[in-house]
């Protein structure tokens, strides 16, 4: 944690907005506009389902609204880490609490395969979304979070570390292992193809 705390905090044009949002609804609304799309997309990539992603996105921003006045961070970077932490926790909580997840995954994969066949866009000789979703679904929720933050949110190791409360080096090693495991899953799904 020392390494994370010692890292110089990036200054952005929105740092003042974060401070103002602690007391002003208009500023809070502006922050919401800045982050709604990002958090929604993050939730889609974590939960594989638009309706569920909307529900979780709602929970995230209602939580932010309730707690914003007590938020201790001062910069947009602090806020970003905070809101993604809430989103990751809410997504993981949803995954753990629902026993329907496996069925949900199967439905999503089946629906997407059907869509791809109808459109004629997908060839089974190559990787497609259903296969990737199914493989990602085999990972631990925390590992799915790291994968999503890295490849769909384009965060660096420092930023991911702030969200998942881990050292950047730990994030890097974990991601390395996750990708290896994902590779194994994908090769298995594709009948052993490299």
């Amino acid at each position, binding site marked *: *944690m020392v390494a994370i705390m010692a890292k110089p905090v990036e200054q952005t044009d929105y740092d003042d907005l974060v*401070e*103002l949002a*602690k*007391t*002003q*609804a208009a500023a*809070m*609304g502006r922050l*919401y*506009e800045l982050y*709604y*799309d990002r958090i*929604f*997309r993050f939730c*889609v*990539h974590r939960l594989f389902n*638009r309706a569920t992603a*909307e529900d979780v*996105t*709602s929970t995230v*921003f*209602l*939580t*932010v*609204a*309730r*707690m*914003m*006045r*007590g938020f201790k961070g001062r910069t947009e970077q602090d806020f970003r880490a905070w809101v993604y*932490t809430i989103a990751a926790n809410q997504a993981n909580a949803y*995954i*753990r609490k629902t*026993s329907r*997840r*496996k069925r949900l995954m199967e439905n999503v994969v089946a629906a997407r395969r059907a869509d791809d066949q109808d459109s004629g866009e997908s060839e089974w000789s190559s*990787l*497609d*979304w259903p296969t*990737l979703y199914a493989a990602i679904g*085999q990972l*631990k*929720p*925390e590992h799915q979070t790291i994968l999503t933050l*890295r*490849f*769909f949110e384009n965060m660096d190791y420092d930023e991911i570390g702030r969200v998942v*409360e881990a050292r950047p080096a730990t994030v890097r090693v974990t*991601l*390395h292992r996750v*990708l*290896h495991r*994902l*590779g194994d899953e994908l090769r298995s799904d594709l009948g052993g193809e490299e």
Partner: protein
Amino acid sequence: MSDNEHDFQKLVAGLKVNDEPDATHRERLRRQMLQTYEEAARGGISNLKFQISNLKRLAIAAVVLVAVVMGAWALLRSGGPMSFDQVQVATEKMPWMRAAVRGNQIAEGRLVHHWYNFAAKLTYTTMADGSVLGWDYGDRRESLVYSPRRNAIVVTELGPAWPFGTDSGYNLVDAFAAFAAKDGVETTTWTTEYEGKTVRGYEVEATVRGVSVEGRSAARLRIAVLADPATRRIVAANLEYLNQAGAMLGREEWAIDYPPSGPSGLYDLGVPAGARVIDLRQQPTGTPSDEPVVIPTPAPTGSRNLVPLEIKLPRPQFVGTPQDARTPYLEQPRGRPRPPFLVPPGTTNLAAGKPVSASDREPLYGSLDMVTDGDKEADDGSFIELGPKPQYVTIDLGERCEIYAILVWHYHKLPRVYFDVVVQVSNDKTFRTGVQTVFNNDRDNSLGLGAGTNLHYTETNEGKLIDSKGTQGRYVRLYSNGNTSDDLNHYIEVEVYGRPVRLIKDN
């Protein structure tokens, strides 16, 4: 970026997914979010400390001045600065204190209520799921837990731990005082507004033990209370649970009032009169068969010497938290370390790294290989979670082995009791033939494997040691059927101590 990262990045870039936000949802949520934001400002106590923006500073200055004058007047009227000791005395003079609690870990829109009777040292809590809890810290020294799911009240003796993770203090006021009295803990005070009144704020932050929020261990607790100078009684409180790194695990807001009377028992709080009462203090305790004994048949080992089994224990995660036990025939805590368990020389953990299969092929959390990966800590990434209802895991030892002891850690972060724990050994991977049961506490035969006579037990960092008395087999299967916290099944680690039969014969 490493090669495999780069490859994966390219792969993702080539795929399509519909992640376009819906404008209607965005706008609807925006309205809800701003409404919640305004409500938090008006009704909540999340802004216990005055937070003044630069732009509003001048506009609010006059209000602040009035508040300060009113506060000073209140202080003068009460004869000087109000200490927390005075607040404690005035608060605990009241016959009952009632708190409506909401928090980010409590179901949306639902409240938890606490009732304190200071004179009798009684505490009642009604939970959002219909559970009702009672603690008598006075004469009876007992804990009562009503579970609506089982329609039963379980009565146990009070454990050594205190609420809020303090060393003493059964209620919020005492807990605050206990924290404030600790060396190195400072009490911060300030004056602010709450529900139109000028009130005095007090805040402490201290380390806690045995407190967890949604399964995550809390290292520190920050309590802020607001007291009305006119009555000197607490009117609101704010609790924040923090982990070791200082991140907030949970937050509670308490709105407090003082009704003239309170519940006379659990039945006044909605517990049905017909609820079954299970008094665990009257249950038999301990089973000789559970105690470690000398392995009775060491002869095949070729050696008469037995050695203590070396077991590396994980870190303990709680200290004497009151048990949430809802089942009879519960083994009482030993209260001391487990005595040494003797095994033939050459005994090792045969399960280490061995393949694991399960009735639930896809754990809700974690992966099956974690059952035998050697990680026994109760950290968030160290356990697997199998689905509800009866579930089992099977460990393939790779060959027929003579098994002396099986150690299992289901989930020792909380003092849970897992139901219908059955452990079997067989050479048949389907467990249809040659099955030997080495432990069974399924007393009502819920699993259909036969009624067992072993006692239920509370999870601790020592794990459950099962004396398997040299039973031989290749496969070890462990059943469970939910636990006292939920219907799910968990495993942190299973160890199987013994020796391959071929090595024994070679000797």
